[in-house]
């Protein structure tokens, strides 16, 4: 290797000498036209060499592993195969890279390979967990009755053409609705309090709600079980489950909305105050609309956590096979608990139902997540194309209305005070609900 390097360096210096002789002594400014530009090189793509190193190392490693496992040693098992192949791959790869580069670069290559493989392991684990659930669910999901019937008449031994999880879907929807009805107003108002009012008490509230994010969800369930079920209602119910979900979700929603509200630029608030608005109108017309997409994302992600958690409902909602529309009396099962209940049974059909229910739950959560991604992902104040068009249209209307008001005014009220009507024309209702309107007006 070193000999190779030496010879290459010698070649390079020869070329340099030769060029020094050939070039004319006078300097001149090269013009872009007469300087021949070589083919544009891609700087980011891996070179052929590097690709060969990877492919060659993979081939060598799998070949050697096959030999080891088939002929030379008594090794067996798929996981062992992968591990041995990976270690060999690292070895071959570093050898191949070391042929052409120094130690620094070899270390860089190996670490890059390790980083990429940790990513591959993690994401394939995710894909595998999801795919495994969906594949095992393939027995139960094609039957339409799975979504339209309850388990009231279906026993563990009944085929998959009987019974379904409609009652669990309804239970989940009712419980999460009650929890959201409490969490959204309370959580967002608290976050507004933390950001807009401030003070010593607000710091205390923030500390407490941060502390509560550490509350294990099973302990939230235990609290509701002991405080509400044992002391007040004396029965498990959908309402108690909703309370447990609320206790778990509230700190999550407060924390996420707090972060979003903190991102609202201070100069928007100051502009609003400078126009003479009250605090309340600033919050309602400037802060909340600006942070809208972030708040929605915060709530949806909190909802996804709340729907998916089993442990708070495990203690509070009770298990039933019957449809129950009343959250205040009788047990009301939800999807995660139904999964848990199904797979406790040794019957293959019940386990298939369990996987089917898990797939429904998974699709629900992934759907919520996708909605959150579509709505969110924009910083506060950044508008989508549709919103920008609507804002532009609204300000165009405002401009037309103000122009007509200005031209109509002198007729109505003769030249008493000509300036006043124009200034008064924008009524409080048309005053900018969205701060983005203001700078747009002149262009329209």
């Amino acid at each position, binding site marked *: 290797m070193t000999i190779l390097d030496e010879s290459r360096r010698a070649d390079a210096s020869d070329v340099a000498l030769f060029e020094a002789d050939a070039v004319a002594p006078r300097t001149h400014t090269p013009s872009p036209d007469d300087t021949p530009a070589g083919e544009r090189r891609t700087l980011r793509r891996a070179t052929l060499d590097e690709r060969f190193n990877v492919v060659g190392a993979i081939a060598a490693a799998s070949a050697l592993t096959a030999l080891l496992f088939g002929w030379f040693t008594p090794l067996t*098992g798929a*996981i*062992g195969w992968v591990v041995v192949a990976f270690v060999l791959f690292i070895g071959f790869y570093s050898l191949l890279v070391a042929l052409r580069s120094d130690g620094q670069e070899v270390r*860089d290559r190996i*670490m*890059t390979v*390790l*980083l990429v493989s*940790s*990513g591959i392991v*993690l*994401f394939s684990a*995710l894909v595998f*967990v*999801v795919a*495994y*659930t969906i594949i*095992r669910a393939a027995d139960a999901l094609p039957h339409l009755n799975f979504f339209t019937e309850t388990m009231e008449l279906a026993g563990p031994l009944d085929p998959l053409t009987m019974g379904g999880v409609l009652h669990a879907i309804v239970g989940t929807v009712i419980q999460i609705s009650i929890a959201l009805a409490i969490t959204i107003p*309370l959580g967002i*108002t*608290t976050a*507004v*309090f*933390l950001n*807009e009012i401030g003070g010593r008490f*607000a710091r*205390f*509230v923030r500390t*407490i*709600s*941060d502390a*509560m*994010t*550490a*509350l*294990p969800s*099973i*302990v939230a369930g*235990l609290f509701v079980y*002991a405080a509400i079920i044992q002391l007040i209602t004396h029965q498990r119910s959908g309402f108690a489950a909703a309370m447990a979900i609320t206790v778990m979700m*509230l*700190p999550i929603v*407060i924390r996420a909305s707090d972060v979003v509200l903190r991102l609202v630029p201070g100069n928007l608030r100051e502009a609003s105050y400078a126009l003479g608005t009250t*605090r*309340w109108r600033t*919050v309602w017309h400037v802060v909340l609309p600006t942070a809208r997409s972030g708040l929605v994302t915060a709530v949806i992600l909190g909802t996804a956590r709340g729907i*998916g958690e*089993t*442990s708070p409902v*495990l*203690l509070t909602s009770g298990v039933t096979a019957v449809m129950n529309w009343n959250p205040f009396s009788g047990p009301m099962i939800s999807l*995660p608990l139904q*999964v*848990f209940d199904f*797979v406790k049974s040794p019957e293959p059909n019940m386990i298939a139902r*369990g996987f089917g229910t*898990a797939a429904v739950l*998974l699709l629900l*959560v992934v759907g919520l*997540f996708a909605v959150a991604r579509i709505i969110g992902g924009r910083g506060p104040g950044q508008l989508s194309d549709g919103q920008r068009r609507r804002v532009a249209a609204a300000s165009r209307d405002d401009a037309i209305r103000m122009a007509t008001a200005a031209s109509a005014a002198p007729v109505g009220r003769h030249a008493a005070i000509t300036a006043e009507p124009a200034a008064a024309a924008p009524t409080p209702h048309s005053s900018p609900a969205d701060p983005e309107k203001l700078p747009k007006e002149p262009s329209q």
Partner: protein
Amino acid sequence: MARPERHGVAVIDERRSLAARPSRADSIFKTVTFSAGAVTVGIMLCVGLFLSLRAGDALSVAGPSFLFEQQWSPETRVFGIGAILLGTFTIAIIAMAVAVPLALGTALLISEVVGGKLRGFLVSLVDLMAAVPSVVYGLWGLFFLQANVIPVSQWISTYFAWIPVFRVSSASGDVLTEASAFTSSAFIAGIVVGLMVVPTQTSIMREAFSQAPVGEREAALALGSTRWGMIQTVVLPFGRGGIIGGTMLGLGRALGETIAVYMIISPIFTINWEVLKTGTNSVSALIALRYGEASDFALSALMAAGLVLFIITLIVNFTASSIVARSRSGAES
């Protein structure tokens, strides 16, 4: 003061108060938001106080031995979380051993190696992974992982039995090798919990890494450093707070995880140091297991266990978030 002379008029205006008088709408707004904050604090203090009060009954009976006693039979007044707490930590430590390398590698991969659209996609995937319900991970662990990981457990216990924690032995001290001795172990539960906490750790670490100053990165590269050299000298020292904080936040989640653990382990009430052997326990699984048939006193004992778990996760979380916050404030200077 100087004012009257300059104006030549000896009248001093009354000093005006600069504080604005809030309008009625404003004072209503202030009251409403304030009371929302108060309600939130009320609910949360209520949870804490109720837990401590109810736990007090059991704790006053058990005394400090609550933390060390291995048995759990509140009916005979002999109960404690010695074995359970150890099981909780065993599972959490195994989870960390699985999660931290994966999270660190993936966070570096996302923040340093890939770019453009792929980076955004991977970030979304990590977030999605955090949103997958724990019961789904539990199903996977119970029906798939358990069967496939047992050969690995057997292999480890065969070749590393000289390390005491990897030994699998019966009560009389004989080494066990049959597959049934390896099911439902802390090792399997730890792997599943580890997968569940990776996304939390990854997103915190990635955020810390992405805040490493561009100037220093470019300086390292301009001095001829390779990418890994740059990561080693700039990104990792800079993100140390994020690494520690993210690890601890993940640890907090791992300690409190219930349903996946409950589905996989077979609960025992003795200390089991052999992580590959069947049988372990965790505080949250204990609560899920025993709340149903619990009498008033037994429930209070469960509350005490829950309170201890809560205090531990609280300490872990606060330490973690203060470490993360300190590293952030350092990032701006």
